[in-house]
């Protein structure tokens, strides 16, 4: 029997558990959080009682099946009913200090999360673990580009403290017009580890060029670029390495309601931070667990019983879970969040995401890696894949033919390629499905 790989630099003892031991740890942790939820959080006391759930009979993670799941529209309905941002899922122990609220915004509406100092310590440590996995180490300045208003911003200051790093706060926010201010921060403070929202990476590179700074020079001291905001394909990872010169591109993914996962050096998916959450992938129709590596709807239990506690929350993200052993030795399974079910589309008899099109493009036509594109809603409505892409300077006709041929063979559907003059930088790596009227 091949011995289990050992983690080269474990964050702590939790990283050294076997997969089986982690499941036992998770069982105990989930049970503890369920006990608190039933005892202290009116929302769960009511819902779990209605489901006939007795936490004393919780014995294994499979027993989560007995609990109902909740989605954003459920939370919005309760928010409307209560006329309040507090849903009865907020645990608060220290009433002498005020709380901080963040937002979770989606296409159907905005809900709110409560965080506090106790949450900060626990989530901070788990987030530090995730950043450690991604390659972060102490001492390098920690750049915060859009403080205060979102959930990652609520934990970045803790990470700066944890990693004994100067906290560098950029003025402005995650908009291209502020990219030059982030460029200034990178130039001045030369961080070795940078976290960035994927579309902003390209805005930063553009701003650097405008300032006469060669992009690779801007990143020449960066050892790890941790990217968030979109699922990264292997081709996009290669592209980012090429344009920035950074040796390691890591990926972090999560949801505001309490999911966190980051890639290890092996790059075979994102390890779930076990002290943040436990994740299941359920068939969106049958609500049964899907097989490993099959696509399901991401349902999670947040395992930090402070502030807003989401249990069996269906974020309606498309996720795969791989619980096979990772060569890095970390015991927690690897996930990949591929997109949202609301953005999926039917083509050639399959349910697909923009991620699938991006993968297909870079597999078959490697020179398209890094090219932004838009999937036309009108094309999909007509049963075809119609891509809007910026016209290359040369050989556009030939490239279009190759794209059509490859994608038609791949997806079994008619394909059109429409060259446009330009597309917004925000679409690079985050291809949307849009009506062509929105492109102009």
């Amino acid at each position: 029997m091949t011995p289990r790989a050992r983690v080269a630099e474990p964050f702590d003892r939790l990283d050294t558990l076997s997969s089986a031991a982690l499941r036992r740890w998770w069982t105990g942790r989930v049970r503890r959080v369920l006990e608190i939820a039933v005892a202290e959080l009116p929302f769960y006391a009511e819902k779990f009682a209605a489901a006939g759930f007795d936490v004393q009979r919780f014995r294994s993670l499979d027993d989560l099946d007995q609990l109902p799941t909740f989605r954003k529209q459920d939370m919005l309905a309760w928010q409307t009913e209560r006329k309040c941002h507090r849903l009865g899922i907020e645990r608060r122990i220290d009433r002498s200090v005020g709380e901080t609220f963040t937002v979770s915004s989606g296409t159907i509406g905005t809900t709110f999360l409560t965080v506090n100092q106790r949450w900060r310590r626990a989530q901070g440590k788990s987030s530090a673990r995730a950043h450690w996995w991604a390659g972060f180490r102490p001492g390098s300045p920690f750049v915060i580009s859009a403080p205060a208003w979102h959930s990652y911003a609520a934990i970045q200051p803790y990470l700066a403290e944890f990693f004994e790093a100067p906290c560098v706060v950029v003025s402005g926010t995650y908009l291209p017009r502020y990219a030059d201010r982030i460029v200034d921060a990178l130039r001045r403070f030369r961080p070795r580890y940078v976290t960035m929202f994927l579309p902003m990476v390209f805005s930063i590179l553009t701003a650097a060029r405008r300032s006469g700074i060669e992009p690779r020079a801007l990143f020449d001291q960066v050892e790890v670029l941790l990217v968030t905001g979109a699922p990264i394909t292997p081709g996009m990872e290669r592209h980012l390495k090429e344009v920035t010169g950074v040796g390691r591109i890591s990926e972090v993914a999560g949801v505001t309601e309490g999911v966190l996962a980051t890639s290890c050096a092996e790059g075979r998916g994102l390890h779930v931070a076990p002290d943040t959450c436990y994740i299941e992938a359920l068939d969106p129709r049958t609500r049964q667990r899907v097989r490993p590596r099959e696509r399901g709807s991401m349902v999670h239990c947040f395992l930090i019983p402070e502030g807003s506690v989401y249990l069996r929350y269906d974020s309606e993200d498309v996720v795969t879970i791989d619980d096979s052993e990772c060569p890095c030795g970390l015991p927690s399974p690897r996930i990949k969040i591929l997109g949202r079910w609301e953005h999926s589309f039917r083509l050639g008899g399959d349910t697909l995401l923009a991620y699938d099109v991006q993968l297909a493009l870079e597999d078959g036509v490697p020179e398209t890696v890094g090219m932004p594109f838009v999937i036309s809603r009108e094309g999909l409505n007509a049963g075809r894949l119609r891509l809007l892409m910026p016209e290359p300077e040369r050989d556009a006709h030939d490239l279009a033919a190759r794209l059509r041929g490859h994608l038609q063979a791949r997806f079994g559907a008619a394909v059109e390629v429409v060259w446009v003059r330009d597309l917004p930088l925000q679409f690079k790596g985050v291809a949307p499905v849009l009506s062509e009227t929105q492109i102009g």
Partner: protein
Amino acid sequence: MDLREFPFYRSRLDARGVPEPWSLDDLEDYAAEHDDPFAGRVREGSRPAVALQIEATSEPPVWAALGPAELDAWAGVVSRLWRRFGLGADETIAFFDYGSNPCVLLSSSIYVSHLRRGAATRLGAHTICNDGVASMTARMLVILENVRPVGLVMRRDLVAPLAEALATHGQRGAKSLRWAAVSEVEGAAATKDADRLADVLGVPVRRLLRADAAFFVAGDCPECGQFHLDRSYRAESLGEGEIVLSAPFVGGCPAIRYRLGRGELLPAGCPLERKAVRLAW
């Protein structure tokens, strides 16, 4: 504090060791000439715990530096301001501005490293920040409706979008507000901006006077109409109606004799805060 340790001040000191007053232009000029992000205002070789990019600077951007005790002291200034405006325990203050505005950043210890007690959370109050861009105005309405803050602090350039949104979608949660304040990147918004917001919200709207390079913020007063200076600051009146400010609570990145602009120092005596030195600005 020996200002000779700070390159920016070294060349500005007179025979008594008092620096010549300076402005943001002077900081930008120094930063550009010496390629120093802190414009010579930190000791050589120091490694500040927190570096803040001063929003009002751009050519080049200049940074300010703070340590934990200095952050806490500045948060104390902001806390006294929120309390004077009317923020209390278990109430919520909402921000419609970038999180990098020090009034936002200092309000919760969640928002910035090394801040032990946030300006609002130390009062037992809660905070929520909505990103300070016009495209987030619709979300601001949702915040007002559901979070029901008692106070709203917002950027001057968002008054118009918010006013339009409230006119279109109705007052909704704005009814919970008891006060608001309008903030400018540097200086203070015009009275007409505060008045417009007051007309829309139906609550008193205060103006903030802000000078991030001097770690300064002050709010005007409904009683006397002037800006009250927190006890943490030292203000001087130069000839010809110019005011310079110093923030003695910051030692690692000194702000001594910053040119605030034209104004008039008034004696204390406002019935709402009897000991506060006041500024007509």
